[in-house]
């Protein structure tokens, strides 16, 4: 393939990079304190990239740049979701930043670069591109967490995130260097081919793989590498928490699939048992510790940890259907998390964040409609049929049972019942408790409309889960 064709394959990435640079320059010269131009340019660039990816979803995987870039159905689908989710995240963020006087043009520039990093991770086909994409994404995220410099909690969260993130990157690199030392390649197909044939080296390959799994687990926030999650979720500005808990999870999922399935599938038996430990620990710690939380952001952080545990269950199943189940899980989690944090932003006002569970007391009296949307989201998170969250658990568990892991499936069902308690507690607070104050909800029409659409999407997709599942299945079919 000629170099111009290869560049065309990476057109979405290239256009995002150039648009991000344009936004950066335009923002430097704009005098508007609300950064309206920056915001709209950012949204337009994301929409353009979305269209570019959406119109060129390939049937066959295509490799470029000396096999370090892949354009296949999985990367395209994930990129589409990443762009679409980020557009909505920025819409929520814009309201939040304006309301809390945190508006800075760099927020959107760094956000665009983070999206670029996620896209690079989704279509990386060598260990080096994965690592670079990861660093691009993480670096932007660290800065976004630290953006509110007046808040000591945000600075502390950023510091923790940065140091632990650097440590995790180091672990990942250590694993990569071991794999490279044994296979003398950083390209996934070659690594897969070599690890298939060299039996005498497989013990050392597993060693390198463990370090890479630590890196993946850290980025996804799986126990026991979850220490940063609660602090960062709580300390960061809510709009950044919203961002961190949605789109990057899709990129981390892509990273897991590329490394474990495309690269190290011959070692499937080894990584299955490692993931099993991570999954059970995550589900246990996430669901049990979340019960005692009073801060809603912290509670949702523990709920993320638990959800990552369920995500791993699909990978443990080790079949195409299981991986598709995991992909379904992570996409639906991103949609639910987006709605929930959007709701927290909606209920907050200047210098007052809906940070405690008590703030949801009697929401049905203040705004029956948003209480209903929040109820949909919480039911979905808990896995109550017919919402989306039920189906994501259903698909994952079905594949797990089909692969013969009955005990693990039973354990995860038990933990999901434990988890249902703290989701349903919010519903109880909203509908059966008296509110402390009856202040009206102040939000723009846009925000209300998108949040409504977000909540209804969870319900509609829950009624028609097969359409999304079909997309995930075709994405992973190659």
């Amino acid at each position: 393939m000629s170099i111009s064709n290869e560049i065309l394959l990476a057109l979405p990435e290239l256009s995002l990079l150039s648009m991000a640079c344009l936004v950066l320059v335009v923002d430097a010269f704009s005098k508007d304190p609300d950064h309206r131009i920056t915001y709209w340019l950012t949204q337009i660039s994301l929409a353009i990239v979305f269209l570019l990816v959406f119109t060129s979803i390939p049937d066959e995987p295509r490799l470029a740049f000396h096999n370090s870039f892949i354009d296949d159905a999985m990367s395209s689908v994930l990129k589409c979701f990443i762009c679409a989710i980020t557009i909505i995240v920025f819409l929520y963020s814009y309201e939040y930043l304006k309301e809390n006087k945190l508006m800075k043009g760099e927020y959107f520039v760094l956000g665009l670069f983070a999206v670029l990093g996620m896209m690079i991770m989704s279509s990386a086909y060598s260990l080096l591109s994965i690592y670079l994409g990861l660093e691009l994404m993480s670096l932007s995220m660290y800065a976004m967490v630290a953006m509110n410099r007046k808040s000591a909690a945000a600075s502390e969260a950023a510091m923790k995130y940065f140091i632990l993130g650097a440590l995790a990157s180091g672990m990942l690199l250590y694993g990569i260097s071991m794999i490279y030392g044994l296979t003398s390649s950083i390209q996934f197909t070659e690594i897969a081919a070599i690890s298939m044939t060299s039996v005498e080296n497989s013990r050392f390959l597993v060693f390198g793989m463990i370090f890479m799994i630590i890196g993946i687990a850290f980025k996804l926030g799986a126990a026991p590498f979850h220490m940063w999650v609660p602090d960062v979720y709580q300390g960061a500005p809510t709009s950044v928490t919203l961002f961190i808990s949605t789109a990057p999870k899709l990129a981390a999922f892509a990273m897991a699939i590329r490394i474990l399935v495309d690269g190290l599938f011959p070692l499937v038996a080894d990584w299955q048992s490692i993931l099993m430990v991570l999954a059970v620990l995550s589900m246990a710690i996430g669901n049990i510790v979340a019960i005692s939380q009073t801060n809603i952001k912290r509670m949702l952080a523990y709920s993320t940890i638990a959800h990552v545990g369920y995500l791993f269950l699909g990978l443990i199943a080790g079949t195409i259907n299981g991986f598709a189940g995991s992909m379904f899980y992570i996409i639906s989690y991103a949609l639910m998390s987006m709605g929930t944090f959007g709701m927290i932003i909606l209920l907050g006002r200047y210098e007052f964040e809906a940070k405690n569970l008590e703030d949801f007391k009697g929401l049905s009296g203040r705004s029956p409609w948003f209480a209903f949307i929040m109820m949909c989201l919480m039911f979905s998170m808990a896995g109550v049929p017919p919402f989306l969250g039920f189906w994501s658990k259903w698909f994952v568990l079905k594949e797990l049972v089909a692969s013969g892991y009955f005990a693990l499936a039973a354990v995860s069902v038990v933990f999901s019942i434990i988890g249902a308690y703290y989701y349903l507690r919010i519903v109880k607070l909203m509908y059966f408790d008296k509110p402390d104050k009856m202040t009206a909800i102040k939000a723009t029409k846009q925000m209300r409309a998108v949040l409504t659409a977000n909540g209804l999407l969870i319900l509609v997709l829950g009624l028609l889960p097969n359409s999304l599942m079909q997309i995930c299945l075709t994405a992973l079919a190659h």
Partner: protein
Amino acid sequence: MIELIVFYIFGALLLGAATMVVVMRNPVHAALFLVLAFFCSAAIWLLLQAEFLAIALVLVYVGAVMVLFLFVVMMLDINMVTIREGFARYLPFGLFVAILMFLVMGLVVSSDYFLSDAFSTFSHVREGYSNTQHLGQTLYTEYLYQFEIAGAILLVAIVAAISLSMSKAKVTKAPNPGDQVTVKKQDRLRIVKMDAEGKE
């Protein structure tokens, strides 16, 4: 033979300089010895025919990083007494770690792998071979994509650093000549009507 002599000279210099970095009381002197240590390592790289690494070490570390380091050392008023306070307390632990690392390194170097013939002879690269050229060619062809991403990462680092450290408040007190020329009397002078005060 000549190579071996040169290696031992620079090796000894490197060890000496590295020791001085730790021992020196004056931080500026320590930083200067670090420059010497980098320079000696660059010479050893050259001896190993890795001229690109040697040049990069001198340009990047000696030229840029160490100068910055010196600036920081000179700007900050570091109280050496407080830094040295824990020396005796941490010495046993430090010695333990150092001996452990020394033993581990000894184990690795004395393993069969490093004692094999491949390491006992030093092979010269063929004449006319330039590893700078080779590196450049690989970097801009095979690793073009990764190279561009690395560029984006550096850009993000700049944006992040500026956005986190820049405060919007204008702190400069520099006068604007244009404003000074166009200033009117009423901008500066305030005439207040007052009743005359009597003598006390």
